[in-house]
């Protein structure tokens, strides 16, 4: 069993597992960190961005590089459409992938890069919410970037990497970075997804079965159990043991795996999501009370639902129940609508609401009574009429490089009364704000990452007791941001294999057995003999039928055994029949020499003599050699052939 690691970001995983001649891809995470190197895409032309100083490396006079780089507050950015670093088909050929398993909608952004134009011909499995909400993420991303097309695309900076300032200089393989896919690629890629339910056993070419189990992280999020009759691999991606809106994590199915692959732990191990949520509510209330507005960059689904719920009730209780909340995203309406029809994927509390019948999420009510207003874009009809300050705006993208958030940072940035609150943990917030500096508005960092922290992960490993634990190398070391926190690592008594991007691991899983179904008719031929108490042996010869990797053992069809010719008294059988004739029994144990001589005497060989063990038996025709292991050789001498 081999594991290929195609991702360096444990929260945007992409691995390939080879097992029993099946190639399974685990997640298609797209690293979006690369976009931070680019200038934001404003919705309306921004004089500030346009007037940024061009930047050129000293001692280099490449006219083509001119205009590609801009400087803002001592940081250099690429002035071009943002690019992404998808998993590379370097150590694995995507056309060989049989199945892609998607864990949650955050881990599928690279899907079009992998399935389109690569010769990929396999099938993709994901739960219904993962597909539906994942589609929203992909669509939003494409629309955000496509709505602000760039006239020229920069690429020459990649040739001069060594002379560029950090962090641009440290970019990983920028030549492999790609522009975002288009909607056609999105649609044809998503069309390959086959929807699955939790605990639905899916057969992969009869060789292995895969099953999604609830991971508690977001709507429809799953971990995967990959198993054959004898081996079990558990793949744990983004998981959460906190009580939020999704169905709770199912740990039972992950127990006792030979191999546990663990990824998707929290990106903010030092922040507690609950206290961050509290801090967020406080910050928002304080800002609003002072007449400022709040911008919360967010994704179109996920924690944002919990934010609507908590923030609206907090504001209600603080006497600010009339402050408008805006949710702006090209997919806002669909996101809100879908969240209320996916009851089967929700926590029991939310699920029970539909039995009343009531909408499981309170935001349906907030939308009905006008507390929460949603718009596709800021230029959508109605927004300018409803817009008034102070207000709370939820919109994308958390990187602040594209989407409506860019507009609000530009619009509100100069006013110190306003606040921007970062809740999504994917981007370092100072990096996200870098191209907007200098800023007067307050920036508050309240990362809410509900995925497992190290304490929870270590407990999980103790409970699951895997044979071997496989995880990204970074989980075995304290976080780069907090090197003294040696408690923030995975600690276990289980054997650990750590990996890095582009590594190929051989996992310690030795197959010893396979499964064959025996027909009852064949069982009737069994003649078990008990060689020891509780241990019986029987020879078994059957015709093997292999179909779709399923093995069935049937009674061997002995076609009329035909003698093709006879020699003397002996008939000569068809060669095939002879080869298929297997012994009915084997000899074992130690041989009683006297009894043996007696037996062959009865058969008419009267002059056999034993000469002790080990030794020779002799008669006029046969010489037998008995060896100490209980083996015996019978020799026939003197037959002549011409």
């Amino acid at each position, binding site marked *: 069993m081999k594991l290929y690691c195609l991702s360096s970001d444990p929260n945007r995983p992409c691995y390939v597992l080879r097992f029993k001649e099946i190639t399974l891809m685990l997640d298609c995470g797209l690293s979006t960190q690369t976009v931070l190197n680019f200038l934001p895409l404003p919705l309306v032309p921004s004089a500030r961005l346009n007037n940024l100083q061009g930047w050129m490396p000293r001692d280099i006079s490449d006219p083509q590089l001119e205009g590609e780089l801009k400087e803002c507050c001592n940081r250099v950015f690429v002035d071009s459409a943002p690019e992404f670093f998808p998993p590379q088909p370097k150590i694995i050929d995507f056309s060989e992938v049989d199945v892609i398993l998607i864990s949650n909608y955050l881990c599928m952004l690279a899907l079009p890069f992998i399935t389109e134009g690569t010769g990929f011909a396999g099938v993709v499995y994901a739960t219904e919410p993962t597909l539906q909400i994942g589609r929203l993420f992909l669509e939003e991303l494409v629309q955000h970037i496509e709505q602000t097309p760039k006239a020229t695309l920069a690429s020459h900076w990649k040739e001069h990497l060594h002379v560029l300032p950090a962090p641009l200089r440290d970019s990983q393989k920028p030549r492999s970075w790609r522009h975002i896919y288009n909607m056609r690629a999105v649609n044809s890629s998503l069309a390959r997804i086959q929807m*699955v339910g939790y605990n639905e056993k899916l057969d992969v070419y009869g060789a292995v079965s895969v099953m999604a189990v609830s991971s508690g992280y977001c709507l429809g999020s799953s971990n995967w159990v990959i198993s054959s009759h004898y081996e079990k691999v558990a793949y744990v991606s983004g998981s959460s043991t906190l009580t939020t809106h999704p169905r709770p994590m199912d740990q039972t199915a992950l127990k006792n795996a030979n191999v546990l692959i663990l990824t998707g732990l929290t990106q903010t191990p030092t922040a507690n999501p609950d206290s961050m949520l509290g801090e967020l509510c406080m910050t928002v209330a304080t800002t609003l009370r002072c007449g400022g507005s709040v911008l919360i960059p967010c994704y179109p689904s996920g924690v944002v639902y919990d934010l609507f719920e908590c923030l609206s009730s907090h504001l209600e209780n603080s006497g600010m129940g009339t402050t408008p909340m805006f949710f702006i995203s090209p997919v806002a309406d669909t996101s809100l609508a879908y969240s209320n029809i996916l009851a089967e994927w929700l926590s029991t509390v939310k699920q029970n609401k539909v039995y009343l019948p009531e909408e499981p999420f309170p935001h349906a009510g907030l939308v009905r009574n006008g507390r929460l207003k949603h718009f596709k874009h800021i230029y959508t009809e109605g927004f300018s009429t409803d817009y008034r300050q102070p207000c709370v705006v939820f919109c994308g993208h958390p990187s602040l490089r594209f989407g409506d958030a860019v507009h609000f940072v530009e619009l509100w940035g100069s006013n110190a009364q306003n606040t921007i609150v970062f809740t999504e943990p994917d981007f370092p917030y100072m990096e996200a704000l870098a191209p907007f500096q200098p800023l007067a508005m307050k920036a508050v960092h309240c990362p809410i990452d509900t995925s497992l922290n190290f304490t929870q992960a270590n407990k999980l490993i103790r409970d699951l007791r895997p044979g071997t634990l496989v995880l990204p190398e970074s989980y075995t070391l304290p976080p780069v941001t907090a090197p003294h926190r040696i408690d923030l690592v995975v600690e276990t008594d289980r054997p650990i294999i750590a990996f890095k991007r582009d590594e190929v691991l051989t996992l310690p899983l030795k197959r010893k*057995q396979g*499964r064959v*179904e025996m027909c*009852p008719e064949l069982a009737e031929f069994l003649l078990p003999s008990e*060689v020891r108490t509780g241990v019986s*042996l029987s020879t078994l010869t059957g015709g093997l039928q292999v179909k779709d990797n399923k093995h069935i053992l049937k009674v061997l069809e002995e076609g009329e055994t035909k003698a093709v010719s006879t020699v003397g008294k002996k008939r000569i059988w068809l060669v095939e029949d002879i080869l298929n004739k297997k012994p009915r029994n084997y000899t074992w144990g130690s041989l009683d020499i006297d009894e043996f001589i007696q037996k062959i005497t009865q058969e008419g060989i009267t002059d056999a003599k034993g000469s002790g063990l080990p030794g020779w038996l002799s008669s006029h025709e046969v010489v037998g050699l008995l060896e100490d292991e209980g083996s015996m*050789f019978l020799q026939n001498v003197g037959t002549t052939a011409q």
Partner: protein
Amino acid sequence: MPEIKITPLGAGQDVGRSCILLSVGGKNIMLDCGMHMGFNDERRFPDFTYIAPEGPLTSYIDCVIISHFHLDHCGALPYFTEMVGYTGPVYMTHPTKAIAPILLEDMRKVAVERKGESNFFTSQNIKDCMKKVVAVTLHQSVMVDGQLEIKAYYAGHVLGAAMFWIRVGSQSVVYTGDYNMTPDRHLGAAWIDKCRPDLLISESTYATTIRDSKRCRERDFLKKIHECVDRGGKVLIPVFALGRAQELCILLETYWERMNLKVPVYFAVGLTEKANNYYKMFITWTNQKIRKTFVQRNMFDFKHIKPFDKSYIDNPGAMVVFATPGMLHAGLSLQIFKKWAPNENNMVIMPGFCVVGTVGHKVLNGAKKIEFENRQVVEVKMSVQYMSFSAHADAKGIMQLIQYCEPKNVMLVHGEAAKMEFLKEKIKKEFDLECYMPANGETCVVNTSMTIPLDVSLKLLKAEAQKNNSLPPDPKRPRVMHGVLVMKDNSMCLMDVDDACKEAGINRHLVRFTSTLRMEDPGPASKTAEKLLQLIKTRLKDCHVQLTDGSISVESVLVKVEGSEDEQKNVYVSWDNQDEELGSYILGLLKTMGH
């Protein structure tokens, strides 16, 4: 032979009161727990004393599975769990769990408050009963216990209707409940994979019908209503609150809009809005089209269809009224029927099946006078139309399902005996399958062949595969697996003889035979060996024959040539007794050389 036993307590050669007991691999499962709408006495519920004459039944039943929310499939459930006292698990889908208690409560009200029945289950009973329900999602594999696994498939019949696949060991059964193989205006078609169950228990309501195309039926339905309201008549459509009603509402709503009709359409049940809310929230269970458009437009928000008030019954002029219940056996629909029946201008459209004993059934059978319990006699002059909108699979659909899932045996339930008989013959003829149709209380035994799972050492499997792959592909060539089966501690593992001996802790002993042939062949011994090699190779094409150190080996057979350059050679042929056949064959071959 392992067997599967089935005893219908209801729905055996009958429609209504579906309740089938299934015994498979030591597990007992109750499939549906329905009530009969045609009876008001104890025949209404299945005869649970069949399971055990008295005392709690929980120890006899491992689980109850409810296929959908229609009362003839779940109506007896509160009685069974709260009054008979079954405390084990009950499985149904989420929409069924949401909607069933509402219909049960509705039915309870009719029975207790309108008919004044006592000893009926209470509202609290229904609530307590629903607490015992485990909701399942489609395709989710649910382990009821260590051995019993169930899995739901989409059945299309009503919102949340499911077929259930049930497995114990290597034996499996599919129970269809009610299903529909053609998508309709709000639901999709039933779907199942090739699960090859030992037994398929299928409903057969429309066993002999091949329904004409859906469009024709819809056009017909709309035309009849339009004609009736044009002449000022009143149209009564008895329906159940959930299910068919929503489909017909969508149909009428779009027609009214297109034709710009002003005649009022009413939906006569307080449930309407609530019912539609269920449809909104379980939109993932509706068909593709509704799911695709629900964000923009909710199909279940009706503009033309207004709530009905009882006082409208005597209103003059044309109107269309949807009223519950669907079989005219009680409630508002019956009340309206009594008022409107004597007028020949009016019309009643029965959009679904009616069980024997209901007013609906009598009316459909052409009864011109109907006598009620209180001796009231109602003359039926109104026009009576039957439109088969009930979403059951027709004969074609049932055959299609059989084709999809490839069962080894078929059983028909939930239908009329005569029609079943016809379909049974058809199934036997077309699929060459055994087909059963037990009556209520009749136990039917289905023999199944069960395979025995064996562990096989990978070494053995790989050796066989390698051997097979090394030969030119020939699907006809038998693939042979040979080894020794080691049986201990409830496990069975097939391995090669040496590993088996090691595993069992015993020593093998070998008997090796050696025969010497004298052969006249001048020249060096190696040359003779070469000749023999060629001979053996041509005869044993499929075998691995090799020459090492002057000896030829095939399996355990060794052929060695000795002798100097003169004519006489000694050829030793030796073999282990396990290769007796092959050894003798090669010996024979060498003996007859040149003959």
